[in-house]
């Protein structure tokens, strides 16, 4: 049986990570780990080795840009694609794809993102 792709969800809102995890587990068939402290994201990524990270941008203890920068500087983590979820921009402004941060070109989605749209972006980035 093929291994499940691993997704790390980082968002300070527990209700968001909990509902998205439910959906991604059940519909996407992914193995999902959640983290609500931005400051722990890089440590958890080293431990979990996700195939993709869904990352909130504005968090109280760290921001998504800084986390992406730290991931980009780590040779073992820098190739992990990141999908940013952000509440401060609109999807039309970013067209679903964004600028490079920390050496990688990442995807940006505006909250509230439809779960189907998130899954299709995850699948596209993972090539599944």
């Amino acid at each position, binding site marked *: 049986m093929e291994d499940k792709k691993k997704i790390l969800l980082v968002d300070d809102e527990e209700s968001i990570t909990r*509902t998205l995890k439910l959906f991604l587990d059940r519909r996407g068939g992914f193995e999902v780990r959640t983290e609500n402290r931005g400051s722990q994201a890089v440590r958890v990524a080293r431990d979990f080795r996700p195939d993709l990270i869904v990352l909130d941008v504005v968090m109280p203890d760290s921001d998504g840009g800084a986390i992406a920068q730290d991931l980009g500087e780590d040779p073992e983590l820098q190739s992990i694609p990141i999908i940013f979820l952000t*509440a401060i921009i609109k999807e039309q402004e970013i067209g679903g794809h964004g600028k490079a941060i920390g050496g990688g070109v990442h995807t940006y989605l505006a*909250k*509230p993102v439809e779960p189907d749209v998130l899954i299709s972006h995850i699948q596209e980035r993972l090539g599944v």
Partner: protein
Amino acid sequence: MGWSASDPIRRGWISEVQANVDELKGKERELQEAYVVLQASHEAHKSAQLQLIHVEKLESVGLLAAGVAHEVKNPLTTLLTGVQYLREFAPPEDDEGKQLLEDMWLAVKRADSVIKGLLDYSRARELFLKEENVNELVERTLQFVKHECDKRRIKVTRDFGQELPRVTMDGYKVQQVLVNLFTNATHAMSEGGSLTVRTTCRSVQPQAESPAGAHVGRDTDEMPSEVVVEVQDTGPGIPEESLTKIFDPFFTTKPTGQGTGLGLAVSRQIMEMHGGTLDIQNNESGVRARLVFRPVARGG
């Protein structure tokens, strides 16, 4: 003793009075001219003051919108994901329950569109300018409402001017304006009708400057041109008492849930940022919206 016009003293007195009257009339004219100048200056001052107040309000709205967006979009994400999960993996068996989930989904989407509208309204000042072919932009935008027009049996007529100069504009934002106008037109023609989009170009006297630096390309070396886009529907028109309010934020004549009331406020603001105008009037056919892209002075 009687009065005689031939009396030299009287004649002298009359001409002196006449001279005084002429002088007074001259002064009155000068006063009137000064009054006109003062009035124009007062109007300009008032308009600048209103503009400043408007900008300050926008800055406040912008800050508020960004804060509200962040605080509201997070819970909306939870709701949207949760509702989708229930619809897919735990659907209610009764019709009322299914309808309830459907209503919740639409409510979340509606709340999101209000937030997006607020962000649009507060961010209309940021323009990313590029030269655009107006006819192509209109055609691309019409595709967004094609389905809606087909559904409502609305005939779309294109009356595009040939060889229009290219217009430097924020194409995405102008598309937003056009989508708003097309959507309003289609909503006004629920029983079918006709949507006519006309583009024209006319030569005008150059103006001093354009606020945002957006400008219309010149079709000749002599005169700059302004490009006009008109959107005409055959709906029932806008009630007279609403005409003065249609550009007010959150004013809408649409049923609850069908409009945020921000579309036209955002649209006018976007046009003003381009140094252009947006006017909407009732006419014998229905409603006519007119966008004008103004030129800038040569060498400006």
